[in-house]
């Protein structure tokens, strides 16, 4: 991806608290338009919190979220969906008692999106023929992989500019994991900006144009995906690979 792309999302010194405990400390990151930006880190590092704050589900203590040039820090979740920010949340968060098609349609709930519901639905069914087969089935009866497809499909139903994916490969069979990552690359090629949180660090960094490492609520490292893949700290802490022989101790 060329570096000349404009910045779509800029998060500046974000602070988020849950009650008295601080979850995010001065988190800053940028996502270039059309690119794949990733956040990796251990459980509880604040990745999901970051995405929820960008989606407008969590209140922000201080800091700024700038999207397509506008400050959206004070906008509601609904207003952010209107601006074409879409979240595919951790654990899929489908409606188990609603059919696959109803789950997808809810992605177009906003009145200004409804006229496109049928067109977008057809597009999603092209992308996931499997969902078309199961359109009338209750989402709670889908397999894990199908549920993930349904969740991504719902996220795409609103024609997002920014698609945030939280751990999309969690709990899936290795073959499916590969498919999901390929799919994310394909979606990005269509011009959708991706912000991806992944616990599958290897895959995640391979497709990332820009990546951030998060630890205990802070961004501790950032750089292009391939570069972080070679970083000793990342290799040791997240890939379980010992540092290459002869390299010096390299605290991040």
């Amino acid at each position: 991806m060329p570096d000349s792309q404009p910045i779509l999302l800029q998060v500046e010194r974000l602070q988020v608290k849950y009650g008295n405990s601080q979850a995010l400390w001065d988190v800053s990151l940028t996502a270039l338009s059309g690119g794949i930006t990733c956040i990796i880190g251990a459980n509880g590092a604040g990745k999901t919190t970051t995405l929820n704050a960008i989606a407008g589900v969590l209140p922000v203590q201080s800091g700024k979220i700038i999207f397509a040039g506008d400050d959206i820090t004070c906008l509601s979740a609904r207003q952010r969906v209107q601006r074409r920010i879409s979240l595919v949340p951790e654990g899929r968060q489908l409606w188990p008692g609603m059919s696959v098609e109803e789950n997808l349609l809810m992605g177009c709930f906003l009145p200004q999106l409804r006229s496109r519901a049928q067109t977008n639905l057809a597009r999603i069914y092209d992308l996931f023929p499997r969902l078309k087969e199961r359109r009338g089935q209750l989402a709670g009866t889908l397999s894990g992989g199908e549920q993930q497809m349904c969740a991504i499909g719902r996220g795409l139903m609103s024609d997002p500019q920014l698609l945030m994916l939280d751990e999309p490969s969690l709990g899936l069979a290795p073959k499916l994991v590969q498919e999901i990552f390929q799919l994310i690359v394909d979606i990005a090629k269509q011009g959708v900006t991706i912000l991806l949180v992944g616990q599958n660090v290897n895959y995640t960094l391979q497709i990332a144009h820009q990546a951030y490492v998060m630890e205990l609520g802070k961004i501790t490292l950032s750089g292009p995906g391939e570069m972080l893949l070679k970083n000793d700290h990342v290799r040791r802490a997240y890939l379980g690979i010992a540092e290459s022989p002869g390299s010096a101790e390299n605290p991040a």
Partner: protein
Amino acid sequence: MTAVDFLNLLIAAVLLAGIYAVMSVGMTVIYGVMKIVNLAHAGFMMLGAYFAYEFFERFHIDPLIGAALALPAFFLFGMAVHWLLIRWLPKSDQPTLSSLLLMFAFWLVLQNIGYLFWGNMDRSIFTPRTLTVLTLGPISISLLRLIVFFAAVLCVCALQLALSRSWYGRAMRALIQNPYAAQITGVDDERIARITFGLGTAFAGFAGALLAMLYSFSPDFGRPFLIRAFVIIVLGGLESVSGVAFGALVLALVETFSILYVPAGYQPAISFGLLVVVLLVFPKGIGGLLERKWRPA
């Protein structure tokens, strides 16, 4: 018991179930979306009864039309109550003490407004069809109960259709099943809650107006029905219209057939007893049991 007795009781039970369903469904949608146990439901039913009564006494409008008019009138009333009172309650995914107290207090207020306007005398709506009985050989059916049953079933089915087909219905179910997911797809929970409260109130008023054709009423009207609605909702598993229909049928069958064995004075004990049994044996309701079977994960 002869077969004819059995059939008569069965018909009576089914007719009763229709009324029970329409009076419980409003509480269910409100509980599902907002997790508020609407104790004021009984107050809305009482107002619905007097609504039909006033139209009948003053303007000689048929109570059935009065009941139909109650739907839009109580819908707006419910939305106003939500805007004035309910929206200030702290949001929660469980029933809170503050919501219980607020709804209980609101019920008392409605009741006392009722005493202020209509006194504590029992009233009833008496029309030519009140005592009409249809006979089919050995089977006899009260015409009024039949009409009320169809009106009730029609409205409950319309609600079910709206919930399953419309954008707002889907949003409502989305809020019930996963509020977080609803939020990230842009569902405005406060607006949906307001509409839901309006809908729940509309059904309370409608049910009250229907019941007023069958029973006499005072400002305390609604209390015994509130307890039955609780039982039905618990039986049906709290959050679905089909669950309510099922719960209503079970309670109506039990109540009707118990007439054979239990003295009439103990009738109220039946719904209470059923409530205790259900809470002990199936805490998620019988509907909840079926749901678990059909919807793994």
